[in-house]
């Protein structure tokens, strides 16, 4: 090893305390990056592997009824590998005295021979016997039941029947029960008959033979299958072609991981700033050595190599520290995501490319950050380097800003001195402020986005003037429903609506409601709302307007609603955050098709607390049964709100963790800065001490300087928080939910971050201050 490398290593060791801080800061950045990158590799692999292991259907076709002849006919198509009949029906489930919960029942013909969209038995019985039901593992919390419990189940057309929960299964392809607030149950055909339903299957899970991941190919094959079904006199009710080979939530997870990766890189950039600060200070303190090396024949590049070598050591040390940390973080993140998305991780093995990329980024980041200070320091002319000025020839007091600072405070005081001191190294101060302010900014962004999401949801739910909605499996006479409602205490207003599906280029929900409805007050952003007397007017929400270019106010569109084409005039666009595509039409249209009937009920209640809603639900359910009306499902507005809040929770947690890590990097940055500031001013402190300053005064002066920087960073973050939170929050929510945000500023964030930044800066400057105050006057004066 030549002397240049030896110098690099020994200087690195000589500055070990400060170096350790910088290594820690870089390691934080790389750890975050490594954790997210490993998680990305593990989760995308495991999610899709787990999903593919179930042999997911290429398409699901709902028909009127499936028989063996139909299945055989479909399987004659060589492009179809398998076709497995099933049935999915809605119902309700009740465990013990708790209220009815919404249920989706999957009926499987032969549990011993599930070939497509396989279920994974978790515990208890398999397959379910007659009179037994299996529950999806994530749905136990919703059902508030456990294996062995007796439950009551009722379907739309059947009778209420007791069943026993005999086991749990994992259905990888389903949306999480907790978030959807729904129970997934699995029964056999005999149990379906016990529930009073016809023993028929009406769903075909189709698997194509070749090109399973080619969506266009699948669509072509499925079109042929549909023709076969129709040619045999069956009806095709709906066809769904999911994204081939992709778990339904892989996109959401991808977006989240992308956001996290961006954040990891951002933290890495911030920690790179600490490298700039450290190496600038190191170059400044070694400028005379640089001059000597140049005088004895060292070229700029040879000298730069020493300091690049130190940056390389910083990177290597940080990578060594951060890889295990990143792996630990990645496992925690993977477990959380797996729990959140309800899938299993069979292997946490991190692929080699992740290690290589992390090492490359971890080593390259400090080298890139070092480029400017090193090239600048190594390029200083030898005569200048050998002079007394070196890189620190700028003296305080030369600029107008310095002179302006001297007017602050008027007479000398500790605070004024601390403030002036903090401005002595402007570039270092700016870089430190950048990291600290970024931490504050992210923290405020997190709280502002959270407050804005709550605000948006508040607005969204404020438009819904109903507390409870009830869906029926079939259209029922409104008169009967109204009779049941009038016999149910606690209801202040009820409206019968008709919910169906419509299509233009894609399918969307159609809500047919009284034109003078009192239970929905949408925010119209263009045009007008439905009005009494409207017959062919349609109001679409922003999600539908965004998806269908023809849905513009003033346009006439031909839609397929209730299996018939009809012409509609778009009169308004309603803003509905976090909503799927929905169109609103007058109830009179559906009444022409189903005179006097509705399939949905909206209710405003006297009290909308959970207990009151539960009582109304139970009473109404009983009264509806008495008039021969069977509710398919019901959902309170509070439950819907809860589901939204659950979805948002992950974003809040992500933002808060981000701000904590960035705040940590900022704190380490400030600690490095204060340590360098104190180191460079040791002689000056010796002079102060010789003039009578006590160690406590020196200590206070340094802590005050750190706090001044903390307060300054808070001010910058506070000034930027509003515009940046608004832009970034909107962007984040738009990417994840394809919906805008009703922005609101969270004043509490300002107060909390002020306390945090003062605490953090006080803490960061405590150690350098303590060490400086302990140095003897002789030691301090002896420092050159």
């Amino acid at each position, binding site marked *: 090893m030549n002397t*240049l490398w*030896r110098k690099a290593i020994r*200087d690195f060791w*000589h500055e070990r305390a400060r170096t350790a801080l910088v290594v820690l800061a870089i390691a934080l950045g790389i750890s975050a990056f490594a954790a997210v990158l490993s998680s990305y590799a593990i989760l995308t692999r495991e999610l899709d592997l787990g999903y593919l292991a179930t042999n997911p259907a290429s398409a699901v076709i709902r028909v009127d009824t499936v028989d063996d002849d139909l299945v055989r006919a479909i399987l004659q198509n060589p492009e179809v590998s398998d076709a497995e009949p099933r049935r999915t029906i809605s119902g309700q489930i009740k465990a013990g005295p708790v209220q009815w919960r919404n249920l989706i029942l999957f009926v499987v013909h032969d549990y011993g021979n599930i070939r497509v969209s396989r279920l994974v038995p978790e515990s208890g019985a398999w397959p379910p016997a007659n009179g037994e039901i299996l529950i999806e593992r994530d749905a136990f919390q919703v059902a508030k039941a456990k294996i062995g419990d007796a439950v009551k189940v009722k379907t739309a057309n059947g009778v209420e029947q007791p069943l026993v929960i005999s086991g749990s299964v994992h259905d990888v392809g389903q949306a999480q029960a907790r978030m959807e607030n729904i129970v997934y149950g699995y029964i056999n055909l005999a149990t379906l008959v016990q529930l009073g339903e016809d023993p028929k299957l009406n769903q075909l899970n189709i698997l194509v033979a070749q090109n399973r991941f080619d969506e266009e190919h699948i669509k072509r094959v499925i079109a042929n299958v549909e023709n076969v079904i129709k040619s045999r006199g069956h009806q095709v009710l709906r066809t769904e072609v999911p994204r081939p080979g992709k778990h339904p939530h892989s996109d959401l997870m991808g977006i989240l991981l992308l956001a996290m990766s961006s954040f990891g890189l951002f933290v890495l950039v911030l920690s790179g700033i600490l490298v700039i600060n450290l190496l600038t200070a190191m170059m400044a303190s070694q400028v005379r050595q640089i001059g000597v090396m140049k005088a*004895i*024949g060292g070229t700029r590049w*040879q000298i730069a190599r020493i300091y690049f070598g130190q940056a390389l050591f910083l990177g290597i040390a940080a990578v060594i520290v951060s890889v295990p940390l990143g792996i630990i973080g990645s496992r925690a993140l993977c477990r959380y995501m797996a729990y959140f998305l309800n899938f299993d991780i069979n292997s946490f093995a991190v692929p080699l490319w992740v290690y290589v990329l992390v090492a490359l980024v971890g080593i390259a980041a400090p080298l890139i950050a070092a480029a400017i200070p090193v090239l600048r320091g190594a*390029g200083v002319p*030898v*005569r200048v380097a050998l002079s007394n000025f070196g890189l620190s020839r700028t003296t305080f007091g030369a600029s107008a800003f310095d002179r302006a600072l001297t007017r602050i405070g008027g007479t000398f005081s500790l605070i004024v001195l601390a403030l002036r001191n903090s401005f002595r190294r402007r570039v270092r101060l700016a870089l430190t402020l950048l990291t600290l302010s970024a931490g504050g900014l992210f923290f405020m962004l997190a709280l502002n986005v959270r407050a804005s999401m709550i605000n948006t949801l508040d607005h969204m739910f404020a438009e819904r003037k109903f507390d409870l909605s009830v869906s029926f499996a079939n259209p029922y006479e409104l008169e009967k429903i109204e009779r049941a409602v009038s016999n149910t205490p606690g209801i202040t207003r009820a409206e019968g609506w008709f919910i169906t599906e419509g299509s233009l280029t894609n399918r969307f929900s159609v809500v047919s409601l009284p034109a003078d409805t009192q239970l929905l007050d949408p925010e119209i952003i263009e045009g007008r709302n439905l009005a009494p007397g409207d017959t062919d007017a349609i109001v679409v929400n922003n999600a539908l307007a965004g998806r269908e270019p023809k849905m513009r106010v003033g346009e006439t569109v031909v839609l397929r609603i209730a299996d018939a084409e009809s012409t509609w005039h778009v009169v308004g666009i309603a803003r509905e955050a976090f909503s799927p595509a929905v169109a609103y039409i007058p109830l009179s249209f559906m009444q022409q098709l189903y005179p006097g009937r509705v399939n949905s009920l909206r209710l405003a209640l006297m009290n909308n607390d959970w207990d009151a809603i539960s009582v109304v639900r139970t009473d109404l359910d009983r009264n509806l049964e008495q008039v021969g009306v069977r509710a398919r499902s019901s959902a309170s507005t509070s439950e819907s709100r809860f589901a939204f809040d659950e979805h948002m929770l992950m974003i809040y947690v992500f933002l808060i963790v981000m701000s904590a890590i960035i705040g940590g990097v900022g704190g380490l940055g400030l600690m490095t800065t204060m340590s360098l500031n104190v180191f460079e001013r040791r002689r000056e402190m010796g002079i102060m001490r010789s003039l009578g300053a006590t160690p406590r005064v020196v200590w206070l002066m340094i802590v005050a300087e750190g706090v001044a920087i903390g307060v300054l960073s808070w001010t910058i973050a506070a000034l930027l928080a509003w515009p940046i939170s608004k832009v970034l929050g909107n962007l984040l929510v738009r990417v994840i939910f394809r919906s805008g945000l009703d922005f609101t500023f969270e004043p509490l964030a300002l107060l909390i971050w002020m306390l945090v930044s003062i605490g953090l800066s006080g803490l960061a400057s405590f150690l350098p201050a303590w060490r400086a105050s302990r140095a003897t006057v002789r030691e301090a004066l002896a420092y050159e």
Partner: protein
Amino acid sequence: MISLHQVSKTYETPAGKFAALKSINLNIEAGQFVGIVGKSGSGKSTLLNMVAGIDRPSSGSVAVAGTEIHGLSENKLALWRGRNVGFVFQFFQLLPTLTAAENVMLPMDFAKVLPFRERRKRAVDLLERVAVGAQADKLPATLSGGEQQRVAIARALANQPSLVLADEPTGNLDSVTARAILDLFRDMADQGTTVVIATHEADIARVIDRRIEISDGTLVNQ
């Protein structure tokens, strides 16, 4: 060996222009031991810097061993210095994190004239020549001033330069040590190395071949 023709050097300072050297003409023969004498601020360090290529003249030309160094780039100058010039400073300027031997090896690592394996041996030989061989593996902080300056002289000789320049090499040493250091320079000159030292030591006449006096940037006595 050294030829300065009409060399002037003017610095821009906040207080205005300052002429450190004024139309200097100077020739120094190879193997001479030359002392540049003058008060503080007279321009002797600037003159030495011109010869070493550490500083560039505002006007005029500098040629050392046949090379017009005033026209070389910073990097070429550094390479040239490494192979042709040894430099000794007043405050020794050893690198604090390198041992004595490593300090001596540093110019060899820069110049890469000597094969890597031979560098340590040569460094130790040089340290023995200046009577600090026993200190080879010690860090500068553990050496006395005289020992540090001896190491610095050994470092100056690392690449067998034809020219050794020394700026106040005894300014920070006691008189006994200073005398010993000057003797070392004398030995170098006797072995054919051109030695130029800037000093304000009164007793330098004992060892030098030629005395050049400088005052206010002008040579007053060659």
